[in-house]
Structure formats: C-alpha cells, structure tokens
C-alpha cells in the first residue's frame, strides 16, 4: 500500500479534515472541491437548508446540493476551511460521508450521449423521408428523398456508430467475436447496400433501419455505461489505512520522516497518538491501541512493553516508540490485503448472462446470413440479389432488443437499490446475489453496533451535551451516544469550536467552557468531561443492529442456513446468537479462518452470502459468492464487498436479494421477447420478405417492449418515500 500518495502533503495549514475526507478533496485551478454523500437529504427543504446555512456561515465555501445523487459538493478557494462547512451540516443533523465520486469528467459517457443525440436526430429525419417513400413516392421524388436520406444518414452513421465499430475492430484484432461484430457488420453493410441502390437509382434503401438500429443500440450502451460509472464511483479507493510515511526516532530525541517502503526491521519508530502503526513491531513501553482494524472490536487494548503490535493499529496514547520487526511489504496489513486480492482472483465469477448470450448469438447470425446467400444462389438468384437478401438477414437480426435487454434492467435495478441505500458495485453482483443459498455474518459492527448501557442512568444534561459533541465525530461509539440522546428526545445544546482527534475523542466549547468526549486517560471506556470539569463515565455495551433480527428470521424462513463467524469472545457471540436464534456460531475466528470457512463452503457447492464490516472480513467478503458491507465498514471491506449499505437497517440486504431475483426474471423475459422477435423475423428475412419498413417496425417495437419491461423495476415514487427513512432524522436546532 505504499502506492498511496501522501495525503498529508496536500493539507494546507490550519485545515482539520479527517484523513479519509481529505483524501477525496479534488484540486482544480480555481480552488478545491469536495463531494460528500449525505444520505439523509430526503426533502426539497433540505436543499435550501444546507445551502443557505453554509452560505450564511461565512466560511467562504459554496455548497451545491445534488438531490438526485444525494450529495453535497463544496467549492472553496485554497484559503477557506471546508471543515467548517461540514460542521455546519452536522449541526443541522445531517451525516455527511466522504465519497470518492470521480470528478474527472466522464468523457466516454459524454461521447456516448453525443452519439446518441446525433443518431436520434438523424433517425427522426431519415424516418420522415423514408415514410414518404414507403407511402408511395416514386420516380424523381423517391430518388430525391433517397439522396437526402443518404446525405443525413451517412455522416450521422460515421459519427454515431464509432463506439460499435471501434469495439468490433478491437475484438477482431484479438481474434474474438463480440456482440459489436454483427452490429457493426449490419450497420456498414446496410449503409453500403443502400448507397449502391441510391446510385443505381432503384430498390429500397436501408438508411432508416441502419440509423434507428444505431440509435437503439446506443441507448443500451448509454444505460450500460451509467451502471458501470455508478459502480466505479461507489468503489472507494483503498484509503489511507497505512500511513504513507513513518517517523524514525533519532538518537538526539528528534524524529526524521521516512518512506514506508524504506523501513527496515530493527529501526526504532515513533508513533503519535491518533496515528496508525506503520509496520509490525514490538513496543518499547506499554501503550493502548484501537485494534478495530484487525479484530473488528473497537475496545481499547493495552499492549505491554516488548509485546508485538500489528500494522494498522491506532495508537490511543502517545507518542510511543516501537522497534520495527518487519518491512512494510510483510506487515500484517499488507498480508491481509494480499489475502483479499488472492481471494478475489480465485473466485470464479460466473460469466455474465449478456456475455453468454453474445457468445452464442454472433456466430449463429453470421452463419445464417451466409447460408441464406448460398441458398439463394443455388435457387438460381443472381449473386447481387442473394447478397442483398443476406444483408437484410443481418440487419433484421441485429441484436437491438438483446443489446437493451440486460442494461435496461440493470440500470432500473441499481437505481432501485440506490434509493434504498444500497450501492451496487457491478451488474454481475446482481446476477450472483439472487442465487445465494447460505448466509455468513460477522458479529461486531455488522449484527451488533455499540450502544450506551441502558441500565446505567445518565444525567440528561450530560447526555445532551455529550451527544452534541458526538454528532461531530465519525466513530461508531459516537453514534451510540447520539442515538441514546435521540431515544430520550433530548434537545441538543449548540457547541462550537469542535475538533475531532482521531482515536482520542472530540473537544468543543459549550457556553464558553471546554468539554470533551472520548477515551478515558487510561484508554479504557468512554468518558465525558463537562463544563464544570467533572468527568462522567459512559458505559458502552453492544446492541443488535436495526433490522438484524428481521433479516435473520426472513433468511431462515427462506431456508438459508445461517452462520455467525466472529473474532469476539465466546460469551459475547453466544448471547447475540441466542438473541437472533442462530445455532451455528463460532467465536475467536481470525481473518484467515473466515476465509477458509468460505472456501470450504464454496468447495462444497454452497453459494454463500457474506455480510461483514471489519478488516478481518475483507478476504472472506472477496471470496463469498456475493457480499454486503455496511457503510461504516472498514475501507478494505467496502472495497471487497459487492454491495455497500448506506442505511442503518440490515433488513435492506433482503431487498438486494429480492431485487436480484426480480431483475433476473425481467432479463429472462426480455430475452424471451428478443428470441420471439427473431423466431418471426429470421425466417421472413431468409425467405426474402424483409423490407426496410418491416425491419424498422420490428426493431423499434421489440426495443421499446424490453425497455418498458425493465422499467417495471423502478419503484413508484410514493412507496419509495414511505420506505426510505433512515433513523438519522435531521434535528433542527
């Protein structure tokens, strides 16, 4: 992971963005921008509320809400401090999360849309002219109209058919056939045949068919591109989990920065509080760490002098010194990343359904056209006429509906999931998740989330002040404090000058007095220090995540065996398993053991759905048939999972499976439509009855039928509103 750029190099002084947010800042020549995902933008009023509050805050940051994508983009010139704008949003009760949306312009997508527009324009005008010819224009008029159609269609085709021809040439160069080969062939031959007929001054032209064909296929291509682009955007880069530089302790007591890759075993390194341990090593004196990256359990762990600490552990006290025992490439973090990469490669992804169809389709069509030409020559037709009929076969069998059948469904499905807070990473995941027949869950952070112990009463004023601070922190425990306050509907006071210290806690000012929420001095437990200097311990326990019991019950009702694999202690896992009614559970499981369990199940023929969040789940998520990670999961898990859930309720996982099933059904229906169309069209065209009019009508109808069929997956707006609310309601101060 030494490939990651050092994000700290880009931090301007005085800025206090957390590193994962800082990593997604984009630098333009006019200033910087940052796009944040804000899942709880649900109503029109949110747009004005966020934009106005940030404009009024005087931070010199412009905010623009994108309601469709539920994002807020902040623009500022380099002097301004965007963290202030983020605080303003948190104060309003929203929960902005960094999102690595590609800000470089999506050139491929724009080119496709431009091609689509040109093809659409040409298709309309050429059809206008063709209709006149079909309606009976003859003689000079027909010739004039045909010349005009050629004048429009040929440049339009030269421009709009480029995506297909480029892809077809690429496939042919590698000696393969793809769906674009018959498409390009049909377009080129239809244009060539039509030009010959225009010059010859007789016969009907196929300009209309060629350009309409291009238009519909481009429509499919645009939809396909949209799903991929959204998938790409939701894949977050393996963020800066390992620091890119470390500090070597010099004999005189100072430190010198050193590149991660240059660390040699035996070097003495210094790690500040809130920093991650760069490589595996042994401690020179005792310190406490957050090992949640490795174990998934966020309780601070005390490590004694001389004991080993693993890379990626977050130092809670410091500065501390350690002796490196391994190079960065051999450290625990790197090993885990390797394990995950290997698991990803080993998973034999079943070929996507569209690719399977294409592999059969292209040779069959070409063979049919060839047989048609030979057949007609044998039957005594002139070679020219036979070739013309063969071309007609190619045009009419061109996979219009087939090209739309899958992408249209996948766009509708991923849109449906997006509205439910599920980010689909690729269309293939949808095909895989539908046939899972077993489910494996991680416990901590997945089935359970941290919560304040309800049996210990806390003074409401203290809790309200703590929650007001906790709103500004991203740690799961902070969310527990906010939830506890929300459960009692406490009005939250306004705090100012909030600073989050990663791994330590949050500082702020309440009525001019300093308050603090975070880890206790000894690193054990959560404390709140009030304005009067008093310190209150807030006992943290864990509670079952919303929707988890319902999800487990629903999966069991469908007959899926359920397993819990947790790195936690046996008693903790037993309690949760008993509450959820799961009999098959294992405690103290390491990342490697989780992976081998998944591999064993796969070898046994099971299609396992893995739901997990910790770093130790990453390899297992990658090895599973399909996988889901909650949005608060570790970066490694989010990268490994097929679907990332931004909502809090686990029950949405069921929606993913159901949508996968519905999408599969619709794809099959669409294939049936396409097959039915071909069953009628192929014999007609082989018999020489295919006219340009018939080709245009048939292709348009089948394309529209499959698109409309796919749209049945889009949720109706009313119902979606009722289902959308996620617990974090905006709280208005």
């Amino acid at each position, binding site marked *: 992971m030494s490939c990651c750029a050092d994000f700290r190099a880009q931090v301007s002084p005085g800025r206090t963005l957390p590193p994962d947010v800082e990593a997604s800042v984009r630098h333009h020549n006019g200033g910087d*921008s940052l796009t944040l995902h804000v899942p709880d933008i649900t109503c029109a009023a949110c*747009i004005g509320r966020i934009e106005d509050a940030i404009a009024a805050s005087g931070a010199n940051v412009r905010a623009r809400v994108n*309601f469709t994508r539920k994002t807020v983009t902040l*623009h500022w010139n380099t002097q301004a401090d965007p963290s202030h704008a983020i605080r303003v949003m948190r104060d309003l009760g929203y929960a902005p999360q960094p999102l690595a949306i590609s800000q470089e312009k999506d050139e491929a997508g724009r080119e496709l*849309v431009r091609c689509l*527009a*040109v093809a659409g324009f040409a298709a309309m*005008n050429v059809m206008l002219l063709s209709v006149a010819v079909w309606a009976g224009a003859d003689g000079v008029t027909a010739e004039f*109209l045909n010349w005009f159609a050629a004048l429009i269609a040929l440049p339009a085709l030269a421009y709009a058919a480029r995506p297909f021809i480029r892809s077809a040439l690429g496939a042919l160069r590698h000696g393969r056939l793809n769906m674009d080969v018959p498409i390009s062939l049909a377009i080129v031959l239809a244009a060539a045949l039509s030009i010959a007929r225009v010059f010859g001054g007789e016969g009907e032209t196929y300009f209309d068919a060629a350009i309409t064909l291009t238009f519909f296929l481009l429509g499919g291509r645009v939809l396909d591109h949209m799903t991929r682009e959204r998938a790409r955007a939701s894949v977050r880069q393996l963020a800066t989990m390992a620091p890119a530089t470390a500090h070597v302790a010099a004999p005189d007591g100072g430190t010198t920065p050193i590149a991660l890759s240059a660390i040699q075993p035996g070097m003495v390194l210094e790690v500040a509080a809130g920093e991650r341990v760069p490589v595996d090593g042994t401690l020179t004196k005792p310190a406490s760490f957050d090992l949640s990256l490795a174990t998934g359990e966020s309780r601070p762990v005390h490590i004694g002098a001389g004991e080993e600490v693993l890379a990626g552990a977050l130092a809670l006290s410091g500065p501390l010194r350690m002796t490196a025992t391994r190079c960065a490439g051999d450290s625990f973090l790197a090993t885990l990343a390797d394990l995950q990469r290997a698991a990803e490669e080993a998973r034999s992804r079943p070929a996507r359904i569209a690719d399977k169809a294409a592999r059969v389709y292209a040779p069959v069509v070409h063979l049919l056209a060839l047989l048609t030409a030979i057949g007609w020559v044998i039957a005594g037709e002139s070679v020219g006429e036979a070739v013309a009929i063969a071309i007609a076969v190619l045009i009419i069998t061109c996979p219009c509906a087939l090209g739309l059948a899958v992408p249209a469904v996948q766009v509708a499905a991923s849109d449906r999931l997006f509205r439910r807070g599920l980010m689909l990473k690729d269309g293939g995941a949808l095909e895989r998740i539908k046939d899972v027949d077993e489910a494996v869950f991680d416990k901590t952070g997945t089935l359970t989330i941290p919560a304040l112990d309800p049996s210990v009463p806390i003074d409401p004023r203290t809790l309200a002040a703590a929650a007001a601070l906790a709103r500004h922190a991203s740690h799961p425990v902070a969310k527990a404090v906010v939830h506890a306050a929300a459960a009692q509907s406490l009005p939250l006071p306004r705090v100012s000058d909030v600073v989050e210290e990663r791994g330590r806690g949050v500082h702020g000012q309440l009525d001019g007095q300093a308050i603090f929420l975070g880890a206790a001095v000894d690193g054990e437990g959560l404390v709140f220090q009030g304005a009067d200097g008093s310190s209150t311990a807030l006992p943290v326990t864990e509670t079952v995540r919303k929707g988890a019991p319902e999800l487990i019950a629903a999966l069991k009702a469908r007959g899926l065996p359920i397993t819990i694999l947790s790195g936690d202690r046996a008693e903790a896992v037993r309690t949760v398993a008993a509450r959820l009614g799961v009999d098959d559970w294992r405690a103290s499981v390491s990342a490697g053991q989780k992976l081998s369990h998944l591999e064993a199940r796969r070898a046994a023929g099971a299609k396992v759905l893995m739901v997990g969040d910790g770093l130790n789940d990453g390899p297992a998520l990658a090895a599973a048939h399909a996988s889901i990670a909650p949005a608060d999961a570790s970066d490694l898990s989010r990268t490994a999972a097929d679907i990332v859930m931004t909502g809090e309720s686990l029950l949405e996982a069921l929606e993913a499976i159901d949508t996968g099933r519905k999408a599969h059904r619709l794809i099959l229906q669409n294939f049936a439509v396409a097959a039915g169309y071909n069953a009628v069209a192929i014999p007609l065209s082989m018999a020489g009855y295919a006219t340009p009019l018939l080709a245009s009508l048939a292709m348009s109808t089948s394309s529209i039928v499959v698109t409309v069929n796919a749209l049945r997956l889009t949720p109706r707006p009313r119902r979606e509103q009722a289902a959308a609310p996620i617990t974090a309601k905006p709280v208005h101060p």
Partner: protein
Amino acid sequence: MNILVILVPAALSLGLLALAAFFWSIRSEQYDDPEGAARRILDDDKPPADEPRG
C-alpha cells in the same frame, strides 16, 4: 414536388437547431441533478444559487 426542395432543408435545419441546443444543455450540466431541479423551482424566496461551473 418543388416545394420539397424548400421544406426538406427547412425541416433539417430546425432539427439541427434542436441538436445544437441539446449539445449545449449537456455541456452546461443540466442533466446532473434532474430531481433537485424539479424541487428547486418550488423554492422562490431566494436569489439563484451560484452554479459551480467546471
């Protein structure tokens, strides 16, 4: 018949005009947030927000 010589180019140029308008609308990012645009129009007591270009 002769009328076609005028009408067909007329239809074409109108179509080209629409095509140019569509290209312009793509370039000025009018399709980036269709749902938001539909809701912003209801929000009247506000000067138009700064459109970030880029």
